[in-house]
């Protein structure tokens, strides 16, 4: 690997980690689409900031961008509070309007500046090593600082965030202002988005804020682990995306977003307990167990009665329980394997343990 390649991947991994941390809370608090809105409206903040500061490289721009993020949130809430607009619609009204103002301001005033819409949505990670501060790429410095801030904030307010996320009422009762926590989180999202979009574009910011935490959500029930898994999955998307993009010679950010999706799908299919495959197996097992239990109860009911000889046969199961012959055969085999029934020619009889199981089932 050349130094450039290492640097590009380093920037990407820092972005992924910085995005995953607030992303976890966005996903858990069901406001994931705020990342979509904010990553678009930071453009508005940057344009306004540029008007005032007249310098596209001024680090203070980040404050304007963060302000724009907070403005997005407060405008959505203002709309929401009128009671005329639902939450999703409120978000969908605010960010296109701010984005439009930003685009109009750009086209009217500074055409010759590197601030076009394509760059906002796409970003160009391949250029990251060319923009340097001293010996290190600027992206490493900026994203390193933002990641550090995010980690420190999470470390300081971990308990509060956790409580406010899972039990808003309790948090409010204990005196933590839900609004303060919400706005704090949104500020963190804004700062992360503005730091990141310069390098990777807003679409990848959204992908890295949502896909890795969503995947991690399927893997664990513990907040701490979810944070760690999200960072790992995000970093894996970034690195694998880089190499796939290099191999096929395509846009790096787009491929990283695609890889985030691919990793999510892999987790969605294979996650233990919550994955689609695991759930399908669980569903099948539940069906099989229920069939065996039905069989035991049926046999118990007719045991030692005059009609036992005719009732307790496989053919009769097909008729009375409306089972397909294949299901009846399989169920009888399963029950026999458990040692719950015995099969003599056609007649089925309960063993001692089978009888006990049936009695327990009926008592349940």
């Amino acid at each position, binding site marked *: 690997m050349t130094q450039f390649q290492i640097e590009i991947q380093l920037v990407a991994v820092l972005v992924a980690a910085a995005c995953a941390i607030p992303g976890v809370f*966005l*996903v858990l608090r*069901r*406001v*994931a*689409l705020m*990342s*979509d809105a904010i990553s*678009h409206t930071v453009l508005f903040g940057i344009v306004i900031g540029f008007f005032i500061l007249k310098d596209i490289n001024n680090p203070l721009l980040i404050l304007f961008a963060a302000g724009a993020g907070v403005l997005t949130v407060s405008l959505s809430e203002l*709309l929401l509070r*009128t009671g*005329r*607009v*639902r939450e*999703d*619609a409120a*978000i*969908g*009204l605010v960010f*296109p*309007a701010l*984005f*439009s*103002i930003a*685009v*109009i301001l750009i*086209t*009217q005033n500074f055409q010759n500046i590197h601030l076009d*819409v*394509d760059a906002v*949505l*796409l970003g160009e990670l391949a250029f990251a090593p060319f923009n340097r501060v001293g010996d290190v790429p600027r992206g490493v410095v900026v994203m390193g600082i933002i990641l550090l801030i995010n980690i420190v904030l999470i470390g300081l307010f971990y308990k509060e965030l956790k409580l406010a996320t899972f039990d808003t009422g309790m948090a409010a009762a204990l005196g933590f202002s839900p609004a303060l926590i919400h706005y704090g989180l949104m500020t963190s999202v804004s700062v992360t988005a503005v730091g990141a979009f310069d390098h990777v574009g807003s*679409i*990848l910011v*959204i*992908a890295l804020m*949502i*896909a890795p*935490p*969503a995947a991690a*959500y*399927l893997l664990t029930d513990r907040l701490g682990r979810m944070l760690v898994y999200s960072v790992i999955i995000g970093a894996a998307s970034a690195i694998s995306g880089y190499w796939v*993009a290099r191999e*096929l*010679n*395509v*846009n790096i*950010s*787009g*491929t*990283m*977003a*695609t890889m*985030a*999706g691919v990793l*999510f799908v892999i987790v*969605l299919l294979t996650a233990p307990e*919550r994955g*689609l495959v695991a*759930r399908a197996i669980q569903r099948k097992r539940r069906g099989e167990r229920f069939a065996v239990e039905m069989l035991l109860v049926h046999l118990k009911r007719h045991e030692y009665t005059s009609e036992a000889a005719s009732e307790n046969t496989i053919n009769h199961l097909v008729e009375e329980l409306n089972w397909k012959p294949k299901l009846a055969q399989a169920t009888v085999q399963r029950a026999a394997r458990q040692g719950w029934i015995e099969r003599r020619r056609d007649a089925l009889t309960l063993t001692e343990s089978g009888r006990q199981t049936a009695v327990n089932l009926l008592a349940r």
Partner: protein
Amino acid sequence: MNGFDLSLIFLDYTIRNVVLGALVLGIVSGTLSAFAVLRKQSLLGDTMSHAALPGVIIAFLITGVRAPLPLLIGAMIAGWIGTLIMRLITAETRIKQDSAQGLVLSVFFGFGMALLSWVTRQPGAEHSGLDNFLFGQAAATVAEDVQTMAMVGILVLMLIVVFWKEFKLISFDMQYAKTLGLRVGLMDVLLTTLIVVAVVVGLQMVGVVLMSAMIVAPGVAARQWTNRLGVMIGLSAMFGAAAGVTGALVSSTALNMPTGPVIVLAISAIVVVSLLFAPERGVIWEHIRQLRRRGVLHAQIARQRLITDSKRPAISSQPANQPVAQPIPVQSGGSANAKGVLKP
């Protein structure tokens, strides 16, 4: 002369196409926006406009031409697959709607971007202008685009007329629709598909980001003015059309004004006016009503106080030299009124 400007709309090829295109876009997206808002699918437009991108590119790769119809179909299929994946995720896991939407939106769009960068590296000039689908390029609208948009638009409106009853029912009362034996699932898919179509029709004009506004804003604005679905849809289409034409005219007369953002600002202004001033639901009227109610309540409380005070025996321990507050006589009407307040 004022007539000169107007005649320019009909004479200038580019302006005419842009205005007509924006008009069709406004009507189609406005109509479906009404349904999207009622069905709480406002952000579906946002998701679909992003998810459509890979479909557009793949359709281009298959057909090799930049004709509007194949690209439309490609976008529709991609948007549709996105919707299905969203449903699968929300139905089968504990991941909620918002995360599923954001996931589909960003991953599909990222994939589309990667595809686009690959396509543009291929030799040949046919792929030029594909990125207009991303960011919208109203000025590039040609007569063929307008024709396709109009055809698709008419088809959409016809379907809405045909399935009017069904769409109305599933927009307001899904459960009731089910009990009536309506094929709710099918109707749901059909209406969602129409929303996807509306989004895709508009993409070329206003671009991905701003198309989402056209699915939210007209419906929200129209909702403020009426409680009737028919009226709401009419208004919604009208608002969409007005914003579209405004945007097209402003951008073609003022130098260097991008069409899409102007359309979005126009529709946003309509939303703000509707929220504030629509009769009955307007925030301003609500505020005035509240002030008035507060005034009436204060008056009633004051009256009640006077009644209870007037029944209280005079306080004898009061020093003689201090003047006793003169009781204000309560009129009989006021007394009855105050009693009415006490009895709910």
